[in-house]
């Protein structure tokens, strides 16, 4: 699939403009702070430590968020009902970025996936099992959690996601294509 070629620039009708001097300026984001209320995350992280998954459900519209949301945008209230979630998930979307490695100058592929935990209505970015070739990934691919060896009550407890075997006729058709 990935047909890498050397061609990088494309010709177009260029216009030339006089070059004037420039004045430098910077925006120092490192003198900024970001504040978050994560009180609602506490029960969720505590459960992760026990190896369990929970989502926060809005009692008005029943949508479940994982990780929990402070406010349900649909109803403008704070969701307050915890529901158990299964360990299975599906790929919601993914992409592969191609970045130049500063040191070697080689192009490296860096995949990113967003998954949707079964039984919830939100997506989150995550890591897939290292043996998965992203070029075989597809939207809707079924997954299962691979827990970390030591649970410490943070999102890193979900080490990555393993693929569940989903061989079926339509999938076979897809592979042929």
């Amino acid at each position, binding site marked *: 699939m990935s047909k890498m070629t050397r061609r990088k620039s494309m010709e177009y009708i260029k216009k030339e403009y006089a070059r004037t001097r420039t004045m*430098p300026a910077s*925006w120092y*984001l490192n003198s900024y*702070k970001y504040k978050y*209320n994560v009180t609602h995350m506490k029960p969720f992280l505590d459960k992760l430590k026990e190896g369990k998954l929970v989502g926060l459900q809005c009692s008005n519209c029943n949508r479940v968020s994982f990780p929990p949301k402070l406010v349900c945008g649909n109803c403008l209230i704070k969701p307050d009902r915890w529901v158990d979630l299964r360990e299975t998930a599906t790929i919601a979307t993914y992409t592969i970025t191609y970045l130049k490695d500063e040191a070697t100058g080689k192009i490296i592929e860096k995949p990113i996936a967003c998954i949707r935990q079964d039984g919830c209505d939100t997506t989150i970015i995550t890591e897939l099992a290292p043996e998965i070739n992203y070029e075989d990934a597809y939207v809707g691919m079924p997954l299962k959690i691979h827990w970390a060896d030591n649970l410490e009550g943070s999102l890193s407890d979900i080490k990555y996601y393993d693929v569940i075997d989903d061989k079926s006729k339509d999938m076979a058709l897809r592979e042929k294509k």
Partner: protein
Amino acid sequence: MSEKIINITKGLVRAEFNFWVGLYMDKFYDGLEQKKIVANKCPKCGDVFVPPRKICGKCNETIALDQNWVNLTDTGTLTNYTITPYKINERGSRKVKKDQIIGMVQIDGSNTTIVYKLLKIEPAEIKTGMKVKIEWQEKTKGAPEDIKGFVKV
């Protein structure tokens, strides 16, 4: 709910910018490099701008790039000043021990003011309306810093 938990994280990155000054300002900075004040003049109302501008805001008149240029002297009048211990840069602000004296100076022959430090002067001596003169940086490079500040004539 029990005790609130507030997470505070710090930013890490920095964005760099390089502002094109444009042809009008470029000509002005060329002048500064040679320790000269180059201004331009609105052909309609006759106002003289330091630094030069493309458009006169008063008459909405576009001033052509190739004409209406005037050379001004390096003397001017102090129209306003303030003394502040605060030093501000793009990273943050802090209080410094030595107060800085900042003045608005109208270069003779111009209708605008420029803001620079007043040097070698005691706060008690300063009066608005007094005559001041540019103190040039020894090495100029075509930037606002070429003018070190203003001194009393």
